[in-house]
């Protein structure tokens, strides 16, 4: 018995020694975004008691995947309330997986909103539109929170830009978020182009859009895509750019 107590004393002394190292390591993990998900009461309310225990035991990712698959099934059954509920749990468990935020926003802003506007059980158009707008807002909220948790991920900025363009018809915000996406490491080359395209649709921003599109056009042959040329031509006419400074007309397609 005395040996067991002595061994316990060794572990306690070791515990005192390891404490600063453990704390420093936990802090470094948080700074490097490794395992910094707060397992607090808010999360427990979202995922329930059993889920919380599973999350505490190191099965957070698997639990999130399981809930994601359930959300997928709920989507197939068009149970939108359940889809929202499950995606809130999934994103609470795995806030550093951009894919989940993106999927959640897509379900809300595209699928659920389309279902709401086509909901035959709701005879009043005004209420259908209201429900549709609420789903747009939910999608936007998922993307904004996703960006907050993953500020270096270009995909979420792109999705938010697409949402502004397609759902809110807000080309200025769409351009802003495509530009933010282009500023992130590993962003695809089209983000810069899309930012300029969107700006070219904004009333009053034509000169800036023209400068951006022209810069892209001059940058390389590869950037001279049909949409870019069309938008540039449109702006040249609108801004009355002198003939000498205009881009040449594209060659007619050879038969």
């Amino acid at each position: 018995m005395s040996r067991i107590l002595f061994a316990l004393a060794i572990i306690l002394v070791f515990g005192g020694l390891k404490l600063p190292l453990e704390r420093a390591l936990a802090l470094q993990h948080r700074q490097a975004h490794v395992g910094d998900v707060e397992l607090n009461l808010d999360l427990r309310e979202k995922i329930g008691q059993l889920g919380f225990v599973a999350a505490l035991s190191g099965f957070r990712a698997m639990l999130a995947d399981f809930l994601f698959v359930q959300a997928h099934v709920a989507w197939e059954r068009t149970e939108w309330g359940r889809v929202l509920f499950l995606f809130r749990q999934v994103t609470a468990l795995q806030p550093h997986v951009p894919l989940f935020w993106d999927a959640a926003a897509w379900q809300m802003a595209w699928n659920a909103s389309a279902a709401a506007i086509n909901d035959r059980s709701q005879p009043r158009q005004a209420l259908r539109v209201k429900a549709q707008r609420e789903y747009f807002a939910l999608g936007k909220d998922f993307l904004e929170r996703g960006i907050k948790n993953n500020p270096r991920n270009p995909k979420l900025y792109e999705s938010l830009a697409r949402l502004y363009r397609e759902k809110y018809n807000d080309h200025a915000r769409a351009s802003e978020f495509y530009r933010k996406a282009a500023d992130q490491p590993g962003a695809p080359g089209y983000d810069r182009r899309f930012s300029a395209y969107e700006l070219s649709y904004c009333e009053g921003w034509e000169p800036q859009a023209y400068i951006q599109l022209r810069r892209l056009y001059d940058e390389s042959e590869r950037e001279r895509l049909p949409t870019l040329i069309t938008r540039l031509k449109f702006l040249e006419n609108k801004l009355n750019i002198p003939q000498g400074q205009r881009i040449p007309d594209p060659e007619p397609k050879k038969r």
Partner: protein
Amino acid sequence: MNPAPHRVFSPARIFAITTNTLTELTRQKVFCVLLIFGLVLIGSSVFMARFTFQQEFQILKDVSLGAMSIFSSLMAVVATARLIPQDIEDRTVYTILAKPVPRFEYLLGKLFGVLLLLAISIAVMAVLFVAVLYFREQAVLNETARELSRAPEEQLNDALNAVHAAGLNIDIFAGVAVIFLKASLLAALTLLVSTFATTNIFTVVVMVFVYFIGHLQATAREYWLEQQSAGWLARGFLALVALIFPDLQTFNVIDEIVAGAVIPLAIFTKTALLGVFYVVIYTLAATFVFNGKEL
């Protein structure tokens, strides 16, 4: 001819006990876990047919690495818990210790046997997982290249880069190494508990509690050190939890690796050192208790 003098510490003796322990564990069909892992891998891929490739790879990585973590932790606890009680029951321990084999060599041999078993199992699971992920990635790459064969080069490259980014990356191996460390820590701690436990069921039950408390240790530690308003009884209890139990949350880095986080080398090295430190301390404590145990 004079007999060779008896050495106080002999790696050869430890190696003999290690291989014997490994053989013994293998005979008990511990490797069946690998079969279950394979089934989990195949089973999860059935679900994934309806998802995009990013979602498919995400789930494949989460499920595979999660299963590796669960199975290796289970193996570490269950295989280690029965080592000493089984040897006492079979009276093998008397045969071994009657020879000039120090008790710490016996314990080290037993622990290394389990660690070798864990290393082999985790390596096999990792190879299976990497192979499945690699073949799926290649299939998606070929499919993408075929679909975008007429698209501009930039678009094709962006699409292929997206597949590469979602697929296999080198950090996954760091995650696998941390899984092994966590399992080793649990094995060493189980060995310590089994030196004073009377049955292996007791050891397993204690270790289940340790597993859960270990994942909460960081929360208890921070509360103890930062919440001055808590009562002395609560603070004393939290202090005990923080000092006695290992911080298992530190070894849960796979979730973030799968999410795309890169573990800096310095953090990985410190985590590995902390893991080794735990294993050494628990093994020393186990040796100390086992040396005084009446057999």
